[in-house]
């Protein structure tokens, strides 16, 4: 019983083998017959020409689609999402820094600080909503978003408890603030950082597929293939028929060349624009955002150290670490060095130089505050930091505002260049299929004119 199907199978195999052999033989016969006569060769040439034109059309359309999708993704999705992730990170850092500063004055909190803190929470929530909708396809980003969503209400609860205790003059208020800040720095901000890293990687990927040289090669190679078929056809026809020009085929060649040139020109224009969107737009956005986040971290450290009344060594050390990562205010090293280079690249050196001089003044104010703090004169230190004639808080605000403006204009530059990149590929989606079809048809037309002469 078990053997029956196997015997059947063997029989079927043998039969199909014979069928294959016979069809192969038939095919060779067909080819031989065609190669024997001129009209046969012309027909074969027509088939070759149609095939190469089809390959060219399909491959080039695919290449243009890859680029168009990547460019569209960069312009409308990944970069705006990265910008949003950056914004979330900055809102959360700003909330942390602002909350700490609010409590420096004891029970009497400044209305503007309180409003700024509430605004930060509001923008963080709305940024989180946007990101939640868009991060579905990355488990890391999804986990990060849900961590932030879960912890943020706890954070704001701790801040409100700190506030209530502070209003009664209870030292435990400062402990609640520390707890809140710990939660922010140990769980919420690292999640924002992971989210940012995921989005940045995605953007890098889209930039790569938007400018990949593979798509160039595809257009050139398949274009050459079609060109070779067209030219070879014309040479053969000229030799066989002793007519110098075959008008449809010449027109087809010109159209093909024009299409290849147009496609390559569009690709390279899109590539230029995309590269400039990155170099002058999203690169400065990333570097300046990192600068803003580190500046806010240092600002928060300063306040938390002052709130701790001498128990804030951890925050003093963290201020130093954040300051070191930023680099010296002359903009020669590390993050500020990078930002300085980008500023000169984008003709915004003046705005950045002003930022640097404000930063230098902020750091001078910090040194005076640190000296007072080291001497145990917390009242004087706090007055210098946030008092009515404070030196430091207005400078910190100025830094934040300046970075905000610079980031906005970098984002503006990005949007402009990305728009150019998208529009550079504008007509290709229709142009390539239409013109490639035209090339194929013109070639066939030219060949069939000759074939008909043999009947």
């Amino acid at each position, binding site marked *: 019983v078990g053997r029956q199907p196997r015997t059947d199978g063997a029989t079927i195999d043998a039969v199909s083998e014979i069928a294959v052999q016979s069809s192969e033989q038939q095919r060779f016969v067909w080819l031989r017959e065609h190669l024997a006569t001129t009209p046969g060769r012309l027909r074969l040439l027509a088939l070759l020409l149609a095939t190469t034109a089809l390959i060219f059309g399909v491959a080039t359309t695919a290449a243009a689609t890859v680029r168009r999708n990547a460019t569209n993704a960069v312009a409308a999705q990944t970069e705006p999402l990265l910008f949003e992730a950056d914004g979330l990170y900055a809102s959360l850092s700003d909330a942390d820094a602002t909350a700490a500063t609010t409590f420096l004055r004891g029970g009497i909190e400044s209305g503007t600080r309180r409003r700024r803190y509430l605004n930060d929470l509001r923008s963080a929530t709305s940024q989180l909503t946007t990101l939640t909708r868009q991060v579905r396809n990355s488990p890391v980003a999804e986990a990060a978003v849900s961590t932030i969503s879960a912890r943020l209400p706890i954070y704001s609860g701790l801040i409100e408890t700190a506030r209530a205790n502070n209003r009664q003059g209870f030292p435990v208020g400062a402990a609640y603030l520390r707890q809140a800040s710990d939660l922010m720095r140990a769980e919420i901000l690292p999640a924002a950082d992971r989210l940012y890293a995921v989005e940045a990687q995605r953007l890098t990927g889209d930039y790569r597929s938007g400018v990949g*040289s593979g798509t*160039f090669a595809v257009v050139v190679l398949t274009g050459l293939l079609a060109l070779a078929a067209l030219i070879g056809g014309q040479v053969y026809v000229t030799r066989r028929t002793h007519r110098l020009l075959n008008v449809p085929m010449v027109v087809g060649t010109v159209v093909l060349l024009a299409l290849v040139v147009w496609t*390559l020109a569009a690709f390279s224009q899109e590539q230029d624009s995309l590269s400039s969107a990155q170099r002058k737009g999203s690169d400065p956005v990333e570097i300046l955002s990192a600068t803003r986040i580190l500046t806010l971290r240092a600002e928060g450290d300063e306040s938390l150290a002052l709130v701790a009344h001498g128990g804030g060594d*951890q925050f003093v050390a963290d201020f130093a670490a954040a300051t070191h990562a930023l680099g010296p205010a002359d903009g020669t090293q590390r*993050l500020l060095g990078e930002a300085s280079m980008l500023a000169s690249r984008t003709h915004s050196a003046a705005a950045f130089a002003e930022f640097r001089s404000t930063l230098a003044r902020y750091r001078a104010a910090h040194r005076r505050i640190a000296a007072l703090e080291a001497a145990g004169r*917390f009242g004087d230190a706090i007055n210098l930091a946030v008092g009515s004639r404070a030196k430091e808080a207005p400078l910190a605000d100025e830094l934040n505002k300046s970075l905000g403006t610079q980031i906005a204009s970098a984002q503006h530059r990005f949007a402009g260049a990305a728009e150019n990149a998208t529009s550079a590929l504008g007509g290709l989606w229709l142009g390539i299929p239409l013109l490639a079809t035209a090339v194929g048809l013109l070639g066939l037309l030219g060949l069939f004119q000759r074939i008909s002469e043999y009947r």
Partner: protein
Amino acid sequence: MMNARTVLTAAVGVLAAAVLAGCASTSNHATLVSLAALDTPTPVLPRSPGEPTVRCNDPTASLRPGAQLPVPGAMPAGSFMRTIERRGSLIAGVDQNTLLFAYLNPFTGGIQGFEIDLLRQIAKAIFGDPGRIEFKAITTAERLPYVQEGRVDIVADAMTVNCYRIRKVDFSTVYYDAGQRLLVPRNSHAHGIADLAGKRVCVTKTGTAKKYLDAYAAEHRRRHPIPDAVSQRTDCLVALQLGEVAAIASDDAILLGFAKQDPYTKIVGPRFTNEPYGMAISKRHPDFVRFVNGVLAGVRADGVWTSLYRKWLGSVAPTRSPPHARYRD
């Protein structure tokens, strides 16, 4: 043939151009730089080593004061009090977060409390003016080195006189007798450590309470509380209010301040350690130790201690008499 060669040349040319155009591409340098900067870790500070346990006879016995205190504003020549007098103010190291004992009043910006008022008595004895004093907020870890290095004249910061510390600095006579107790929520049924088996109890990392609980756990292997160590005293109150711990073990002096900040808590159980508080002074200035002991003897005798106790602690703790001064010579 000519045609084929032209085509080939053209092909190579176009391909080269395409590859060149592909090179003017993008880079993820900015992303890497910004991510690296954002990853800057918070530096890990070296943790201060705990104090070793050493033995000695009665560490609270201090230097006997002279028969009579010098007249304020006329300190004897060559004495450390004269140095302070010439400087213009007494420099005292204090805490700013212990409600009732030494804390910052956020509304006035000044430091106040029981310890602060006692220190003002010393300034009054030197200058005749209790306002001639400068408070330096210091951390628990800074107390001994600040006195040893002469960065402050005196420290009054809920500091227990013990056998280890008297090797480093001198102490005044005891100005407050504290002891370790428990703070629990008002609805808790715990009356002592034995009732907290398996529960979390908050202590400070370097405090005496942690040592005690660790020793208790070693002795009662089966049933003992689990110490939950935090770095700053007030973090314990946060942990209790958030329900993360069932109790706080600490000096009752500190617990009084906690109970004042949260009326839904109570101090329970007997004292399980004695924590006599003294003021720390450099070993280089025995004359100043005797002087401070003289001032403290004065405030014990003339009722100032009692009135200060009532002012700060009267509403939260039962009245008691000042601790007896013990002298070693």
